[in-house]
């Protein structure tokens, strides 16, 4: 597995993401369990994921604003953008009764830090434009800013821009793919993601690998 997965991890990906990094993240989709599968051919597994959109955690805008004011200034995003990203990432991976979500895992902070230091103009522009687009669509759909919209309205917006996740065409659809890739990467590499959500038991010295006896 070691050799194959390291090499398969880099499988060519048909959707051209905006940034190298996003592509890396997505190439990695095909790494371990999913090695060898290009997304366009991925079948049943994912069809149902989108069906039931989650309820928002009950965070009022007031407390959000308060928290944002206390937090250290973001390095790449404006404070307003940061609050938006924070909410978007939490909508993608929310707190549920199993574990805390993206907000608790400080996903927005990680995305902000990586974008701030990025060497390339392209991803930065994509995020600036993408966040603006979210606001434009929110105005168009609901007549208010994203963070002023109701939980249902926010979900409706995300549902719309995530429709063509496998073959994103419109700019907002492409932005969703980028937003989600970074969110997923940051979340599942966080303490909360690894230990609380996935309950990963490895990265420790084992006496023996507990498998099934094949003989």
């Amino acid at each position, binding site marked *: 597995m070691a050799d194959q997965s390291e*090499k398969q991890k880099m499988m*060519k990906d048909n959707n051209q993401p905006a940034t190298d990094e996003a592509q890396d993240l997505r190439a990695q989709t095909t790494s371990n369990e999913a090695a060898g599968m290009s997304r366009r051919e991925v079948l*049943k597994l994912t069809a*149902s994921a989108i069906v039931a959109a989650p309820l928002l955690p009950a965070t009022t805008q007031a407390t959000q604003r308060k928290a944002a004011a206390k937090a250290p200034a973001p390095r790449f995003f404006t404070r307003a953008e940061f609050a938006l990203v924070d909410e978007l990432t939490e909508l993608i991976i929310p707190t549920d009764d199993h574990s805390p979500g993206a907000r608790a895992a400080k996903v927005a902070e990680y995305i902000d830090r990586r974008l701030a230091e990025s060497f390339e103009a392209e991803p930065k522009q994509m995020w600036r434009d993408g966040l603006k687009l979210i606001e434009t669509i929110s105005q168009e759909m609901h007549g208010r800013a994203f963070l002023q919209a109701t939980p249902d309205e926010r979900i409706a917006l995300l549902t719309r821009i995530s429709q063509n996740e496998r073959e994103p065409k419109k700019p907002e659809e492409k932005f969703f793919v980028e937003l989600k890739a970074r969110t*997923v990467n940051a979340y599942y590499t966080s303490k909360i993601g690894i230990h609380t959500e996935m309950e990963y038991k490895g990265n420790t010295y084992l006496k023996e690998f507990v498998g099934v006896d094949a003989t």
Partner: protein
Amino acid sequence: MSLIQIKRQRKSDVNLKQVYDAIVVGSGAAGGMAAHVLTSKGMKVLLLEAGKKLDLDKELKSTEWPYEHRRRGEMPPDAHALIPNEYTIRQPPYAKGLPHKHVYSYVQSWGGSDYSKNIVVDERDHPYTGTNYAWVRARVLGGKTTIWGRLALRLSDLDFKAKTHDGYGEDWPISYADLAPYYDKVDLYLGISGQKENLPHLPDSIFQRPTKLNFAEVKLRQGLKKMNRVLTPYRAGVTTDGLKHNKYRNRCYGRGACNRRAGGCDIHAAFDSPTGLIYPAMDTGNLTLRTNAIAYEVTVDKNTGKATGVAFVDAETKKTYEAKAKVVVLAASTLESTRLMLLSKSALHPNGIGNSSAHVGHNFCEHIMGPGVAGLVKDLVGKPHTLDDGRPGGFYVARFRNLTDRHADFIRGYGFEGGSGTTMFPGNAMGTTGFGANYKKQVRDYAGAFISMGAFGEVLPRYENYVDIDPEMKDAWGIPVLRFHYKFGDNEKKMAKDMADTAREMFEAAGIEVVGVEREILTEGWSIHELGTARMGMDKKTAVLNQFQQSHDVKNLFVVDGSSHVSASCQNPTWTIMALAWRSCDYLADQFKKGNL
């Protein structure tokens, strides 16, 4: 922050006035083995390694959690690792036109290329030209063995006598019986984990404790049994029981690190050349190591045409030096040894040293990759997460094509590497669509239920597939670089189609739900198993080396890496590279003592 620790060479360490018994160029699998065997026979050896001596433990940091690293294992912003598309769309030299300070040849992934960035080469310094080729190189003490995937397989007479079997190409000048005792030596000296299967075409090693298969893998193994195909636990060049004779290595503690980084085991349970071969060789007192020494020419005696030593340039100071020896052993990896031979032109060797046959650089072969399958084992959905990556590898499916039957569309065969189960980063997280609580639950419930495998197939050696020296381009040290003329052919493409078909068929036979089949072929070079550019053979008109990897033209020149392979087979090459090097160096030492070199 630099973690590199270079052991500075003191002048007294490396005496360049001395005429060594042998110079070995390169310290990977092949060079490490040559150094081990020759020093154990009492020969005084100078090992020239182009790269640095890195403190690998500090580089790999394999138990570091992603969140302990400020970029979760990814490279700093001024560095860029080539992404798959860059290998297919752009022409080499790949770093050209990119704004980054460093461009690395090993593709960035979550696996954490920040840990391998000091190990793999920077394309800016190491360009090449010609056809697309993903040429991954590791220029450090130990070469690619510092990050290799450690699948350790033997070849059989189905490979050594492939021409006899199907009429294509050339047979090797040796048979399995010649090499079997040396495979045994490699097994015992370095340690290998695996399970006996008694397959004539995939001979067993002298195995230490195998790693176990998990539920999904056993299901597949049982399904394949009905088809007369064999899935066996990953045969890993890893010591699972320990090696009493080697104080530099530990037994495998299954920490799950194998599958997390770009290879690399920092407790050295997995074989790497420094701890497995070079440090023990240094302990004999017969080995002198010169790192940062980039060989650029094999020097020759104007009158006899024999090798007199090696000219090299210091990687840091760019000063040039000449080292002298009675025998020169090239082990700089397949393509680098080839480059060195082609660069070593002189009046008596106008085409490059050892190249009177004009075959150096030709018959270039390797493995083709890409096709594979991913599947879902329903019984495992929603089950508590087990620990599945605490082992050196998952499984290997032995070749089953063209053994006794004959496939209508192609000759030779392929095997599959695969694995299943939960890993630290849920492999399905990126591919699962949607968002919200449902997405999150789906990732959680399905993370441990996937199984996948990808094929490695034999690429036929063809004279028209070759490398030569680019007339203009030079590397950062002013050394002319390689130009590739290399493409997969028809046999490979037909084989690739069959790989995808059989992959699906096998999962279905085992009752595994197929969720994706990959049919596309990865760029040439992807397997990192380049071979064949200075092949062995009886006939000096069509072969560069004899059966002992000794140049037909220059009797004190040996080339002990994968460039000597006559065909690629479909099994990964490293264990064979080492068994061959051991055999040839035994012969070399014997001939040296007899004064025949």
